[in-house]
């Protein structure tokens, strides 16, 4: 019983990772709050932590080729406990995509479409995502090959156009914040967005060369990590102390661009990056959620539940936080700790238990 027949190449995996990590971090600087102008250092440390977490979960998929985390859980913990843990993981994917959607609505409500109801924005987005998920992982991977380079270009050209406004004095003195605060901010940057790639535990099974998948994941993470570090440092250098108190620093920085009074008001490019990269992130998460549910409940196909789950995500996104500040508070104070069991806990414990039980047994083909 194969729920997913598609296969993606390792290069497509890397590109997908880049798009996924860009997700909503194209507008919200990772590690931006708490570390002040040292946010780029926090981002760099966060990237390292993210790579470490990626090493854990890729080690897991290396052990169990062609298996998603749901199947691995069933093998490692047995049927009942395994499915319980799988459901927890599915909850994380579901919650995370609702958070991304929430992010989306608040940004759009404030900056782009103040009068459009959130429901409309989200429904339009989730319909596109659902349609993509219905066509399988291969279509998404091919789509990301088209979308991600454009956004990389946008981020680079944003930075190039901002060079006249960069003041490196704004980044000095280096390491100004106490180290405890910096590490906290770094962990924040790791949990959002780098370690969120743990969602690829649902995707890594469909890579055509599984033995090379870890290097593809690391490659993608490194590229997107450097792009984000560059963006965060640029925001702080251009905006100065304002970068810390504004909610969407990249958007504000894009407003500063002014090349001879002609090339101005490019901030809508930032909104476009959010639309496209957010689409990739939500699609991967929706895909993981419905595929996981189908595997846990032994469905024949995951397609019938795409729309219901998508609608539930929208409803959850509309109701889980009351206002932007609640979202920001959760993202800063709650989320870095809330995410630990899912990002590190489940993959690490599963890996350790699998090693102890010497799974998968060689030769024995179990599922």
């Amino acid at each position, binding site marked *: 019983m194969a729920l997913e027949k598609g296969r993606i190449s390792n290069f497509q995996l890397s590109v997908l990772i880049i798009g996924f990590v860009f997700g909503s971090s194209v507008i919200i600087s990772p590690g931006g709050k708490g570390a002040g102008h040292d946010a780029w250092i926090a981002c760099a440390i966060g990237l390292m932590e993210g790579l470490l977490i990626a090493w854990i979960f890729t080690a897991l998929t290396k052990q169990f080729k062609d298996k998603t985390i749901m199947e691995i859980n069933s093998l490692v913990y047995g049927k009942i406990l395994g499915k319980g843990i799988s459901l927890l993981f599915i909850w994380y994917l579901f919650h995370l995509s609702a958070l991304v959607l929430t992010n989306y609505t608040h940004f759009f409500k*404030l*900056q782009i*479409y*103040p*009068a*459009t109801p959130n429901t409309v924005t989200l429904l339009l987005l989730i319909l596109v995502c659902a349609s993509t998920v219905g066509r399988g992982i291969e279509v998404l991977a091919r789509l990301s090959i088209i979308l991600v380079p454009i956004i990389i270009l946008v981020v680079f050209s944003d930075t190039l156009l901002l060079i006249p406004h960069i003041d490196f*004095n704004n980044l*000095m*003195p280096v*390491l*100004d914040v106490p180290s405890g605060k910096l590490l906290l901010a770094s962990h924040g940057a790791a949990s959002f967005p780098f370690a969120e790639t743990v969602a690829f535990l649902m995707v890594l099974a469909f890579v055509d060369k599984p033995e090379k998948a870890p290097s593809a994941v690391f490659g993608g993470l490194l590229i997107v990590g450097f792009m984000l570090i560059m963006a965060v440092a640029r925001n702080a250098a251009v*905006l*100065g*102390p*304002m970068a810390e*108190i*504004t909610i969407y620093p990249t958007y*504000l920085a894009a*407003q*500063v661009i*002014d090349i001879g009074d002609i090339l101005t008001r490019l901030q809508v490019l930032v909104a476009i990056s959010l639309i496209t990269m957010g689409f990739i992130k939500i699609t991967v998460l929706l895909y993981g959620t419905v595929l996981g549910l189908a595997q846990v409940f032994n469905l024949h196909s995951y397609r019938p539940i795409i729309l219901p789950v998508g609608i539930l995500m929208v409803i959850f996104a509309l109701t889980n936080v009351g206002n932007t500040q609640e979202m920001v508070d959760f993202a800063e104070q709650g989320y870095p700790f809330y995410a630990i069991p899912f990002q590190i806990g489940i993959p690490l414990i599963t890996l350790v238990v699998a090693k102890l039980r010497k799974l998968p047994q060689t030769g024995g083909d179990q599922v």
Partner: protein
Amino acid sequence: MKREKRIKIYVVILLIIMPGFLSGCWDSHELNKLSIVSGLGWDIDNTGKVTMTYQSIIPSEIKGSSGSNGGGEQKGGSQLSAIQLNQDTGSSPYDALSRYTQHASRIPYYEHTQIYLFGKEGVQRGIYPFLDTQARNPVSRPKALMVVSAEEKASDILGIQDGMENIQAFGMAAEIKLSATFSKYPEVTVLQFQNRLLSKTTAPIAPMVGIFEETGPEGKKIRRTRVVGTAVFKGDRMIGQLNERESSGLLWAINEIKIGFVMIPEASMEIVSAKSKIVPELQGDQVKITIEIDEESNLVEYRGHQDITADLVHELEKGQAKEIESQVRAAVEKSFALDADVFGFGEAVHRKYKKEWKDLKPRWDDIYSRIEVLVKVKTHLNEIGDVNKALIKD
């Protein structure tokens, strides 16, 4: 067969849904329903009431007036041909705005606002209501200019039509930018103002615009605007101002010199390039600041009747350095008198001595006026012009 039927149903559903999105944005703002605000004046009186003066563009006047402007005459005797002023008072900026809607036919649109002008009276009481609304409101632009009116009220200045430009606020913005390009007065955007405010020790600054009267042809009085000084803030309140010389000195120290002229009694030099650096040094509690200025210039005027010699060039370089130093000194002394760190000395110390800064920061106001400032100017005269002999010799 079944598949084809399904596709047909999808197409029909799509056709039903699509018109809903093709109708355009339901919250669209049509140009003929907007009053595009070119400049916004702020006055805050002693009871905290805010008076907002909107200088709006009348689009229909823009098209026709370009021809008549070439002739140098003002249309129909009216001074404000392409702009209209509206004024409202309320207990807060948004209260004033809500009153505006009672007598205006179009809603104000701030995306093209280039200038925020503050009345002198209000700016001495604090402009926090403005700073908050500005930072909070997503439609406001971080690159709009902050300007302080040298007259009591912002509306005094916003109503003056300056010959060359149709839209007075845009003209004023160009005026300020030009004076900044020629290194006379600073050009301060909202973002720069906010950053100076957020640094806690650095004092925000803004150029000041005043009115001067000219006698035109036929003895008619023409009122024009001009940049007259630099307002110095402490927090959100203006506490003093720098004159022309002090403003130049400030620009020399904060590396904002672009082009412009240095005048000494016997000659004038055109600045080609200038760089400056603030180097702090900490000895216990004593802060020593060295302002290092590196300047290159060309000779454009020489009033002495001598041939130019290598020695004379050196003398001119020295004289120039002395002049620059005295300008910087004037600015430093004024800032000490105001006890306002307009140069960002505090941030310079912070960048170099981050550990000691924690202890210095709360006491910076006391420390500031005791800072020892050294000004080191290096000048270089490149070109002397097309002649090296005087036309009339002594």
